[in-house]
């Protein structure tokens, strides 16, 4: 299970990445992340929706209402071009951090 801080740090790039795959709504985004991480990560709704609304205000995503499969209205979110740029930036940062940690935690170089 991730720490609270790490959970908060990963939520934005992860949401952008989920929305880059396809337009989605809050419940589906949470479910997708739960599935991808084998139930290791599950964000609270209290964190997800304010983030989605902030991303919308920053014009990274847009929202629209659509009738879902079960006949109920759902608020879908779609990534905007600015959101794609932001996601690319996030990817770059996280790859850098991941590379650093991989190198530090990888096998000790054999000097003999």
């Amino acid at each position, binding site marked *: 299970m991730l720490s609270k801080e790490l959970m908060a740090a990963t939520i934005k790039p992860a949401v952008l990445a989920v929305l880059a795959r396809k337009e989605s709504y*809050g419940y589906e985004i949470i479910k997708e992340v739960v599935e991808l991480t084998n139930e290791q990560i599950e964000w609270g*709704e*209290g964190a997800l929706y304010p983030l989605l609304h*902030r991303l919308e205000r920053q014009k990274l995503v847009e929202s629209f209402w659509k009738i879902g499969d079960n006949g*109920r*209205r*759902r*608020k879908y979110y779609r990534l905007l071009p600015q959101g794609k740029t932001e996601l690319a930036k996030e990817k770059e940062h996280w790859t850098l951090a991941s590379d650093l940690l991989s190198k530090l935690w990888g096998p000790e170089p054999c000097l003999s």
Partner: protein
Amino acid sequence: MFELNKAIEEWQRPFRLSHIYSVDTIEELTHHLLDRYEEFLDQGSCDEVAFDKAVGKVGDEISLNDEHRKEWKSTPWHLRLLAAFRLEWQWIEKPTLRSLYIFGRLWTLGLGLWWVILIPLSIWRLIFRSDGWWFQPNQWFYLQGEPMLHLLGIASVFILIPFKPWSRTPENWLRVAFALLVVYTVFHNLRIAILDLGIYGGGDAFMWEVWLGLAPMMWVIQMFGRNTTLALKPRLDLSQSARLLKT
């Protein structure tokens, strides 16, 4: 017997009374709650237990409040003010009351701004003994507290405290203090209005005082308007959801 619509209405109530949740957000959260509810039904829970579990998962107003409040506070103040107007416009369904309510808000806002300009100007004129057209020094009584009461009108616009049931919290005591000031201001203005009739004998003075007295009355209308949101029904149409109708 468990009634889904009633349970949703109860769950929605604190959200509807809070200024930080838009109609859209509440509907979005409600659909999320229903998704969770269906999930627990599928897992074999009975409807009442499924709903309780769904609320536990999605959260109530208290547990969701922190993050939403942070988001709300990060919004610029003028957008918050506009959002508050928009929210109130959406929630007050009776057209007459809605118009009156918004009129009350604008009135107190305008009057508050008027005094914000007037007080420094009057003080400036008093200090420099100018014979300006605004206030003469012998009209100093206009600055004896009354403007401050009207500033409370504008404060009520900015405070935007969501109305919740009575408890001994500082917020509720603040409301009581406001209410007492409103009552005081109304009587104070009426008294002055009657005195003015005697002193000046003119309708103008009377109208001036009535005009001032309207501000706190408008504030009462604002609070009244907010309370009516208690009586509103959730705007969620479940009729299209066959899965939920079965429950």
